[in-house]
C-alpha cells in the first residue's frame, strides 16, 4: 500500500484493529506479534495449520481468561478492547461463534438466549425485550436457519449433534446482530446441506456496517461465504494476505511454503 493509501485508510475508522499482538499461555508465547485490520463491511478469512493460533486469536479478542497479553493492542471502533470485560465486549457487538460450543444442562436454549439478549440490551441502555416479542423474534430467526422449534426448548447444546451446535451458534449471531462476527471453524461437523444453510445465514447478515472474520481449514466454505481478504496464519503470525484466490492457491499447495516465512 502506498503511503498516501495508508493515510487515507487511517481516516476511515476500522472496526477491528489488531496491532502487533503478543500472547502467552502458561508461559509459552502463542501469538508473536500478529496484526490484522478489519473494516466495516469486509469479510476476512483466516486459514492456517492446526495449532497456528487461530482460536487463540479469537479467544483473546473475545476476552477469554487465561491468556496473557504481553504486547500489542486490539482496538474496536478505536476503543481499547482488551480493557473491557468480556460481557461488555459482547454488548458492544463482538461475537464469537465457538469452535467447540459448550453444553449447559438444565438451562433451556431460549431462556439462555433471552437472558443473554436482555443483558446486552441493558448494558447498552436499551429496554429489555419482553418474552412474547423475544419468542416471536427467535422463532423467525430459527425458521430462517431451518432450526426446529423443539431445539430451543432443550438445554443449551445438550445432546445436540455437532452440526446442531454449530447452527445454534449461527442462530445466536443472527439474534444478537453483532458488529464483528468471528466464526471459528463454523464449517467443521456440518453436512453439505447444513453448511449451505449456515452460510446463507451468515451471508444474510453481511452488511456495510458489519464485518466477519471466518476461520476455516477448507476452501469450500469460501465458495459460499466469499471473502474480501484471505490471511494465512502460521506459528502465531499472519504470514500472507491476499484476495480470495489465495485460498485456492493454498488448497493446491498446502501450508508448507509458509512454514519458513513464519
Amino acid at each position, binding site marked *: 500500500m502506498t503511503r498516501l493509501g495508508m493515510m487515507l485508510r487511517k481516516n476511515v475508522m476500522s472496526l477491528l484493529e489488531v496491532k502487533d499482538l503478543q500472547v502467552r499461555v502458561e508461559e509459552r508465547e502463542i501469538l508473536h506479534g500478529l496484526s490484522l485490520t478489519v473494516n466495516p463491511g469486509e469479510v476476512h478469512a483466516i486459514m492456517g495449520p492446526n495449532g497456528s493460533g487461530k482460536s487463540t486469536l479469537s479467544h483473546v479478542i473475545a*476476552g*477469554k*481468561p*487465561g491468556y496473557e497479553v504481553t504486547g500489542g493492542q486490539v482496538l474496536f471502533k478505536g476503543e481499547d478492547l482488551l480493557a473491557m470485560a468480556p*460481557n461488555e465486549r459482547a454488548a458492544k457487538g463482538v461475537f*464469537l461463534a465457538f469452535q467447540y460450543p459448550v453444553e*449447559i444442562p*438444565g438451562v433451556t436454549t431460549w431462556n439462555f438466549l433471552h437472558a443473554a439478549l436482555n443483558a446486552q440490551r441493558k448494558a447498552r441502555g436499551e429496554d429489555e425485550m419482553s418474552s412474547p416479542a423475544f419468542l416471536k423474534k427467535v422463532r423467525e430467526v430459527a425458521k430462517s436457519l431451518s432450526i426446529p422449534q423443539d431445539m430451543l426448548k432443550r438445554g443449551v447444546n445438550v445432546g445436540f449433534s455437532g452440526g446442531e451446535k454449530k447452527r445454534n451458534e449461527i442462530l445466536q449471531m443472527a439474534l444478537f446482530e453483532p458488529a464483528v462476527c468471528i466464526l471459528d471453524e463454523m464449517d467443521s461437523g456440518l453436512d453439505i446441506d447444513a453448511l449451505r444453510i449456515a452460510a446463507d445465514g451468515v451471508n444474510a447478515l453481511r452488511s456495510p456496517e458489519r464485518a466477519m472474520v471466518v476461520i476455516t481449514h477448507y476452501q469450500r466454505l469460501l465458495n459460499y461465504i466469499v471473502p474480501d481478504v484471505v490471511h494465512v496464519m502460521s506459528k502465531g503470525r499472519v504470514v500472507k494476505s491476499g484476495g480470495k484466490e489465495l485460498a485456492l492457491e493454498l488448497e493446491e499447495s498446502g501450508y508448507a511454503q509458509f512454514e519458513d516465512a513464519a
Partner: protein
Amino acid sequence: MPAVQETVERVRRIDVDQYRYGFETLIESDKAPKGLSEDTVRFISAKKNEPAWMLEWRLEAFRRWLTMTEPSWARVHYPKIDYQDLYYYSAPKPKKTVNSLDEIDPDILKTYEKLGIPLREVEVLEGVVRPEGERRIAVDAVFDSVSVATTFQKELKAAGVIFMPISEAIREHPELVKKYLGTVVPTTDNYFATLNSAVFSDGSFVYVPPGVRCPMELSTYFRINERNTGQFERTLIIADKGSYVSYLEGCTAPQRDENQLHAAVVELVTHDDAEIKYSTVQNWYPGNSEGKGGIYNFVTKRGDCRGRNSKISWTQVETGSAITWKYPSCILRGDNSSGEFYSIAISNGYQQVDSGTKMIHLGKNTSSRIISKGIAAGKSQNTYRGLVSAHRKATGARNYTACDSLLIGDQCGAHTVPYVEAKNSSATFEHEATTSKISEDVLFYCVQRGLSQEEAVGLVVNGFVKDVLQQLPMEFAVEAQKLISISLEGSVG
C-alpha cells in the same frame, strides 16, 4: 485472572452482612427467664394454657434430655452451646384477640412486606377473594413463637381440614394430638428433638380427613425475632386415608451477633392411599463474612408412611443458616408406600451443611427416590449424608439415589456419605454420585453472550438444580430460583 478464579474472588468478597433480611421488628415481648429448667418448661406450658397431660409430656422429655449428650458425628464444627444462656420462650404481647387483619400489629405486617412476601399472601391475609379455580394459599403466620394470624379457616373447615397453630390444636383437638404427637419422632429420638419436645413454642397442626384433597396449599412463615431466643417449632401433619395435602414452609431471619439455636421437629403421618408433599425454602441468617453469627439449625423432620400405597415427598431448598443439621426422612411402613427426597443445599461463606435423608424400607414393595444437589462456594463445607435401609421383611424394596455436587472455587468442600443396609436379597438399590467444578469454559461461553459473571453463575447453578426446582410448587420455585442467585451472588435485591 481466569474466570473461575474471578468468580471465586467475588464470592469470597461477598459480605454476607448484606443479608437482605437482616432487620428486627421492635415488638414488646414477654420472655421466659434465661436458662432451662423444669420451671422453664412449666412456664411455657402455662403460657400456652396447656392441659396437664401436655405438661407431663414435656417434663418427661425434659428429664430425658438431661441424660443425653449432644451428638457430634456430623461434619459441622461450632463452639459449645450454653443451653443455660438462652431464652426458651418469647411472644409478642397480643394487644387483643386477633380476628381481622386490622388488628394485627402493623409492625408485623411491615416485616412481611420487607421480607418480600408476595402480595398474594397479603391478599390472603386481607381475605381478598380470588376467582374460582385459582390456586390459593393459606398462611398460618408464626411470628416469633406465637401464631398471630390464621386465615382461610372457613374454607378449610368446610372441607373438614384442620389447620391451626399446634398450641390451639392441643386445646381444641386433644384426642388427635395425643394420638399422633411423638409417634413419628419419639421424645427420646435425639438430643435436639428431645429438647424440642420439652420446650417447643408453637408450629402448625394439620389434619386432613379421609378422602379429602386439601383445597389449597398450606404455608407458614417462620422468623426468629428475639435476641438469644431459641426457636423450637413443632409441626404435625396427618393425612388420613385417601387424602392429599401440600404444605409449604419458608423462613428468613434477622441479622444478629450471637448464634441462634433452632431445633425444630416436623412429624408427618400418611394413612392408606394418602399423600403429603412437604416443601421448604430455608433462608436463615448464615452469619457474616467472617463466619460470625448465623443460625444453628438442628432439625428433625420425619414422615411415617403408615398406610398401604401412601406417599411422602420432601422437597427442600437450603440456602441459609451457619450450620444445617437436617435429614428429612421417610419410614416406609405400609406395603407399596413410597418416599421421595429432593434437595438443593447451597453453602457459601463459612456455612456448614450436613444434610440428607433416611429412607427406611419396612413394608413390601416400597420404593424411594433421592435426588440431592449440593452447591458449595466460599469456604463452606457441604455434606450429603444419607441412609437407605431395607428391613428383612421389605421384599421388593427399591431405591434410586443421585447425589450431585458442584464446587465453586477451591476453598470449599463437598462430601457424600451414603449408608446402605439391605437385610433382604430382593432389594434393589441404585446409587449415583458426581462431583464437578463449575466449568470455566461454560462461564466464558455465557459472558461472551453478554451475561455478567454473576448472572452466568446463577444461570449455571439454576440449571444444575433444575430437577429439584421442578418439584416445588410454581410460586415457590420462582422465589427459590431468586434466592439461589442471591445466595451465590451476594448482590442485595
